[in-house]
């Protein structure tokens, strides 16, 4: 800390002020005291010398009376004790020098005659004259000469003053330093907070208030200011952010616009379509590069309404009409016209589409259009149409063929049922007649052969019946109804068991879930399966037929089990074929159509049929029916 050059800190400045003020006060008071002291010093010195002179006068008075200069000198020599007395003389009453004294070898210059009583200061010397008076008689005069050491005294004084000042200043500095804390610390706090705020941009910081004086007010004001700044900064930041957002959005929009424009430009050059722009009267004004490329028209040709000449005559007329309408009532329109194609040197079919660009007032600013070459497309469509038509023709021809084939099949089976039976009836009928009319003329062997003929003719009748039934099934439509399978099974079994006179099979029926299907067809299924079960178990001691059903997730499964001869599982695949038999006809009569019929009926109902067995171990036939009968 250097006094005289104020520091940059408040502390420094305060200290500076204190020290300057202290110094000034000390100097003024020091000066005042010095002046007073100097005056006092002279008076004291004059009084002192006067007293000396009086003492010497009193002492020297007898010497004068007795004219003893040596005694007078003796008294003067006593002045040795006063080093600042540089000379002393005693004059006689008549003014003659009586005795003189000098502390040094040097003769002291005194006037030859004594001056009047009093003193005079000459340079740094005080000269004093004092009459020696005894009994109101002037005996002589004492003259004293003393060095008047004012400068030395002043210097001493100044040294003391300087020391005092230095001590005072140090004390003041120390005290002010301590006292300053109460001022500077809150200020330093405010400063540090301010610095933090500046560095961290954190306007939530607050300076601590430690007093209620001006500094307290300052802290309050500072905090208020921070509040305000914080609020402003926040507002500013918000608005900055909004601004940034806006800027970003604008940038994005600008980017999008630029991209859109790039895309448009690329599109115009990339698409095979020709894009054109016309003014509101349908005139080409700007350069139409696409149009030029396609039609070969130069700008001179297509400008204004020249572009229409690129269409063939019929198209020009059509276009003119359409434009007249469009100019009247601005609406987008589309036409298919023949347009000259320079590259192929021919007119090609194009689709011309024109869209009005409307101003904000709904007036037409200009027209934008596209020309699409649809020649190939049309040709392809035509080819496709032809192809489709051909295909349709072929399909209908094929359908007709199929229908004819179906009809043929139907009439075939009809013929079979009538014509194939006629000879059979004759064989059977006349064999019967032979039997009835001529039985007694036939020997045993002839009768045996005749009965074979009758039997086989019967069998053939059955085969034909079954075959026809099977073929009819393929054509018969299914009439689905909800069926009580338990009832259906009971009735069927009763009917069958009655016809198998030799059979006395035990019949066990488990739970049978209902089904949806064609009653007569499913009756046929039960009939075939049950009659098989009865037939193939008829040779057992205790024939047993069991029927049951299982409800599964999407279908119901039914089964018919017997304890009859069973079959070899290797031939399971053959079971359901037409005219497939796994057993001897003589043992178990049948045509081999029954299971084929079952298979066909169940399949047509959307179900499955399967069987499992071992020879001699009985057989189980299963069939499933979906819970939802599919629509045929």
């Amino acid at each position, binding site marked *: 800390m250097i006094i005289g050059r104020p520091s940059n800190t408040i502390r420094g400045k305060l200290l500076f002020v204190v020290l300057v003020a202290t110094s000034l006060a000390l100097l003024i008071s020091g000066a005042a005291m010095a002046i007073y002291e100097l005056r006092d010093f002279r008076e004291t010195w004059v009084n002192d010398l006067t007293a000396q002179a009086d003492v010497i006068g009193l002492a020297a008075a007898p010497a004068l009376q007795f004219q003893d200069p040596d005694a007078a000198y003796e008294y003067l020599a006593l002045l040795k004790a006063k080093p600042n007395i540089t000379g002393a003389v005693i004059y006689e009453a008549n003014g003659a020098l009586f005795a003189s004294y000098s502390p040094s070898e040097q003769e002291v210059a005194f006037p030859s005659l004594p001056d009047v009583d009093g003193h005079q200061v000459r340079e740094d010397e005080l000269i004093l004259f004092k009459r020696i008076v005894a009994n109101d008689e002037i005996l002589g005069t004492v003259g004293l000469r003393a060095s008047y050491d004012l400068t030395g005294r002043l210097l001493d004084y100044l040294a003391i003053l300087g020391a005092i000042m230095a001590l005072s200043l140090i004390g003041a500095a120390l005290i002010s330093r301590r006292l300053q804390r109460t001022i500077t610390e809150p200020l330093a706090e405010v400063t540090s907070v301010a610095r933090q705020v500046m560095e961290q941009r954190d306007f939530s910081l607050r300076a601590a208030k430690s007093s209620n004086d001006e500094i307290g007010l300052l802290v309050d004001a500072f905090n208020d200011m921070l509040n305000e700044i914080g609020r402003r900064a926040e507002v500013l930041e918000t608005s900055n952010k909004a601004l940034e957002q806006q800027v970003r959005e604008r940038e994005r929009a600008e980017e999008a616009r630029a991209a859109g424009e790039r895309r448009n430009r690329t599109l115009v050059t990339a698409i095979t379509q020709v894009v054109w722009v016309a003014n509101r009267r349908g005139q080409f004004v700007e350069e139409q590069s696409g149009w030029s490329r396609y039609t070969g028209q130069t700008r001179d040709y297509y400008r204004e309404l020249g572009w229409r000449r690129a269409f063939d005559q019929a198209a020009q007329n059509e276009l003119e009409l359409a434009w007249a309408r469009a100019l009247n009532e601005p609406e987008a329109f589309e036409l298919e016209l023949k347009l000259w194609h320079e590259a192929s040197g021919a007119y090609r079919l194009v689709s011309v589409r024109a869209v009005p660009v409307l101003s904000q007032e709904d007036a037409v600013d200009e027209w934008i259009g596209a020309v699409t070459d649809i020649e190939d497309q049309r040709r392809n469509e035509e080819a496709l149409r032809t192809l489709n038509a051909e295909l349709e023709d072929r399909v209908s021809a094929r359908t007709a063929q199929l229908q004819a084939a179906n009809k043929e099949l139907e009439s075939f089976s009809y013929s079979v049922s*009538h014509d194939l*039976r*006629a000879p059979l009836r*004759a064989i059977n009928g006349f064999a019967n007649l032979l039997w009835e009319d001529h039985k007694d003329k036939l020997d045993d062997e002839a009768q045996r052969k005749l009965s074979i003929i009758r039997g086989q003719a019967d069998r053939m009748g059955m085969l034909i019946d079954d075959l026809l039934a099977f073929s009819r099934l393929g054509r018969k439509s299914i009439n689905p109804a909800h069926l009580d399978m338990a009832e259906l099974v009971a009735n069927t079994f009763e009917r069958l068991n009655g016809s198998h006179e030799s059979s006395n099979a035990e019949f066990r029926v488990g739970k049978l879930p209902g089904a949806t299907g064609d009653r007569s067809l499913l009756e046929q299924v039960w009939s075939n399966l049950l009659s098989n079960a009865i037939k193939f178990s008829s040779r057992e001691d205790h024939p047993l037929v069991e029927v049951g059903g299982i409800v599964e997730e999407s279908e119901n499964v039914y089964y018919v089990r017997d304890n009859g001869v069973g079959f070899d599982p290797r031939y399971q695949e053959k079971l359901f074929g037409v005219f497939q038999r796994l057993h001897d006809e003589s043992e178990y009569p049948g045509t081999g159509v029954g299971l084929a019929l079952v298979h066909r009926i169940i399949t047509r109902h959307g179900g499955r049929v399967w069987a499992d067995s071992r020879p001699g171990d009985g057989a189980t036939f299963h069939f499933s029916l979906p819970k939802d009968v599919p629509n045929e």
Partner: protein
Amino acid sequence: MNEYEHVEILLVDDSALDAELAIRGLKEHKLANDVVWVKDGEQALDYVYRRGQFEGRSGVGPRLILLDLKMPKVDGIEVTRIIKGDPKMRHIPIVIMTSSKEERDISESYSLGANSYIVKPVDFEALANVASQAGYYWLAINRVPG
């Protein structure tokens, strides 16, 4: 012999063998005395309407027509349509004889008004049932049991 015993049955069948067997059956049931056999639909219509070779034939009827379906020239369906479409003749019961239970035959003959059908070879029990249902008790009455 009352008038009901004067039975007249028109048997229409192009198959001589079938006809012979049918007549034999009718004979066995003592119904053959008044059976007239014609070989096709045309002759059947001639007989019913007394024309052609049957112009001025004697007798009434027929009381019953046993009609085969599949015949040359005019078939059984056509014969049924004509007779059942004729208010004067529609009372004559027609029993169709079919070779099979072809649904098509059965439904067609019924829709044309045939009274019944039987499957060949003619089952005379069934025939008697059919006739009795049609109101012709004579067949049932004259039936020889066994």
